[in-house]
């Protein structure tokens, strides 16, 4: 009997992932909802039904999830044109505005619910970010293009970087408060940020260089970039740096040195698809039903406040930045997804002895709601903006 239990525990992850994939394909065909929403739902159900079928997420699984996220972030960085922020400064202004206002609004909402200052600050910094994995998967699934698509991507990149920055500062502040060591606080926040970006940038210069030297760019680029991302994520994981920031910088740097993935290699092909299932199942499997219930009130309030703030801010500057009010509002709405990014950020701080998920029950509720709802909102934003393929030919 014990052998069977062991066997079942070994089987649990592959089984959960297979079920999630099947449900994703089937659910997407029947309901038209984004696959990743369904993966997330299955992950949460598997972890929480009858006291949890899935074994606890260990370091290896977390590393795999980070690799999956790294691949998505690399591709994400690849689709960002930094030069645009200079030619149309309103994009940068919009990004800054919606991030800062979200931070402030979330802070006050959390405070109104009686949360401690540090909890308020942590919630605020994490709420700024839109999940790059969420929006990119939906955009690729819908094969959308146009201003709403383009702005969701660029605003997401901006708010992620700002969120990582704010989060690290808050964590540093907290560490300083509890340990009194300025060095520990600084090294785990700002220095870590710069080191992560530097490692990513180094990869971004080296890998295209090697590819150019090898000569056959079009053929080998995907495998080479995938391997580099795996290496980079593992390296940053071991060095306790931020894989998120490193992979994003890598993609940005590689893009600006103009070696590109071709159309067929979007999502890193089958490898990317496979790891995405794992990523979304793992992410929501870390959420516990009890936390979700306990934090439901504040969580839902935060979801509403965040959605409203982002939509209003992006709408406010839409005319100035060259699009219609309508497209501005839809771009704001499309920034809804939150899940994976925040979970990995929070998981990353575990080594510091900060078990934030336990502190932030509201976060669990918010993540669960937006894990399922966020991608759906992004999808509808693209469909309503007539930027998705399916609207025209479906």
């Amino acid at each position, binding site marked *: 009997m014990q052998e069977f239990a062991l066997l079942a525990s070994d089987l649990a992850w592959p089984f959960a992932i297979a079920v999630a994939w099947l449900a994703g394909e089937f659910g997407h065909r029947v309901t038209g909802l984004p696959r990743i929403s369904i993966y997330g739902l299955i992950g949460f159900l598997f972890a929480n039904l009858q006291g949890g079928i899935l074994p606890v997420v260990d370091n290896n699984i977390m590393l795999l999830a980070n690799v999956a996220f790294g691949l998505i972030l690399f591709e994400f960085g690849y689709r960002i*044109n930094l030069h645009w922020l200079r030619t149309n400064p309103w994009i940068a202004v919009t990004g800054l505005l919606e991030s800062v206002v979200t931070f402030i609004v979330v802070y006050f909402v959390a405070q109104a619910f009686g949360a401690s200052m540090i909890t308020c600050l942590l919630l605020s910094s994490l709420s700024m970010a839109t999940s790059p994995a969420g929006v990119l998967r939906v955009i690729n699934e819908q*094969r959308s*293009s146009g201003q709403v698509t*383009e702005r969701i991507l660029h605003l997401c990149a901006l708010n992620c970087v700002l969120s990582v920055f704010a989060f690290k500062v808050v964590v540093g502040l907290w560490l300083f408060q509890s340990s009194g060591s300025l060095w520990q606080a600084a090294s785990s926040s700002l220095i870590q940020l710069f080191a992560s970006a530097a490692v990513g940038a180094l990869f971004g210069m080296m890998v295209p260089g090697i590819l150019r030297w090898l000569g056959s760019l079009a053929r080998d680029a995907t495998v080479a970039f995938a391997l580099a991302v795996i290496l980079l994520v593992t390296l940053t994981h071991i060095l306790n740096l931020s894989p998120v920031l490193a992979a994003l910088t890598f993609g940005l740097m590689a893009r600006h040195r103009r070696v590109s993935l*071709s159309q067929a290699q979007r999502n890193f092909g089958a490898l990317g698809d496979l790891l995405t299932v794992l990523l979304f199942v793992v992410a929501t499997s870390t959420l516990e039903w009890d936390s979700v219930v306990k934090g439901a009130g504040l969580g839902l309030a935060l979801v509403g406040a965040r959605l409203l703030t982002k939509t209003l801010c992006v709408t406010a500057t839409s005319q100035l*930045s060259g699009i*219609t009010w309508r497209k501005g509002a839809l771009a704001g709405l499309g920034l809804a997804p939150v899940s994976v990014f925040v979970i990995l950020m929070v998981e990353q701080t575990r080594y510091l002895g900060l078990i934030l998920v336990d502190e932030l029950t509201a976060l669990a509720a918010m993540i669960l709601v937006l894990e399922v709802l966020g991608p759906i909102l992004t999808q509808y934003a693209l469909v309503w903006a007539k930027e998705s393929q399916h609207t*025209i030919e479906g």
Partner: protein
Amino acid sequence: MSLDPFKQSEPLTLGVELELQLVSLSDFDLTASSPDLLYLLGLKEFPGEVTPEITESMIEICTGVHTEHSGLLLQLQQIRDALVQAGDTLNVGVCGGGTHPFQSWSEQKIFSKQRFKQVSALYGYLAKQFTIFGQHVHVGCTSGDDALFLLHSLSRYVPQFIALAASSPFVQGRDTLFNSARLNSVFAFPLSGRAPFILSWDEFENDYFAKMEHTGIVKSMKDFYWDIRPKPEFGTIELRVCDTPLTVERAAALACYLQALCSYLLERRESSPTEDDYLVYNYNRFQACRFGLDGTLVHPKTYETLSLREDILTTLRKVDTHAEKLGGLAALEYLYRSVHLGSDAHYLRSQYADTGSSEGVVDAAIRRFRTGSEDGP
């Protein structure tokens, strides 16, 4: 609906239409941005006309009616600057080139307008493969008969325009070895090719067009995808074989070369066009598409073999007094230089060799469109 009567227009007046690519400046792939771009352009006065095309990653611009090179060039440059500025606001690169080097046609969206949807339903994958970009030049004619005379007299010079404008060597990420691969997509349409050999407008209208209309195959002149076609409602003939060049400067030069050539042909000093001129037509056209300026032609009257490059240089000399009278000498000088420097297709291939990627080719095309410089960025 029968054919419009041929409207008399000022002889040798010019109008240019360019189909342009809309490319994402993030990943250099085509982007379905025409609705966004048209919205933004609509907020300000536009120095010309701009209209959506069949796929949303394409727009068409038109100039007004011009009589000489300087005016045409100025308007094209103003249009370009307006497009580039709007594109920058939206992270959209605007560029020339007959094909996009690596777009995959199955990704393209059809602009939602009734006629486009019908075309798409009729032609299936051909409509999407039609994500190709051409330059059309209108030349004013005093009568329908003049128009048909010019149309058939020009047939012998069609390969020259194909070679001078060629800018579509890459299709779906591959080097096609053609200089103008775009025209291969045009030839797939059932009503493409050359116009029937008829020299009288009366006969064309009442005999040929009326019969074709009666068959139910065509409803208007728009259904013909001929290399040169008459446009009675404008009182023009329209040359349609040119790829959209990488710069508006080359587009203006090509238009004014055509103008000078038409002026020369209207003197009627060359032997009159005959049906037999078309015996070598498809072969010559293929040579121009495949080899560009390095192609060889068979002369339709003498059957001697000519170098296409030499033939262009000879013709440039032949028409230069006409160009001078029409204020188009600068255009001829431009083309004279580019015959030596190489075509846009040649430039794109060199960019592929330098950057090693199709994205690098698109980036180079965007920069060249923006600056108009032939010296290369």
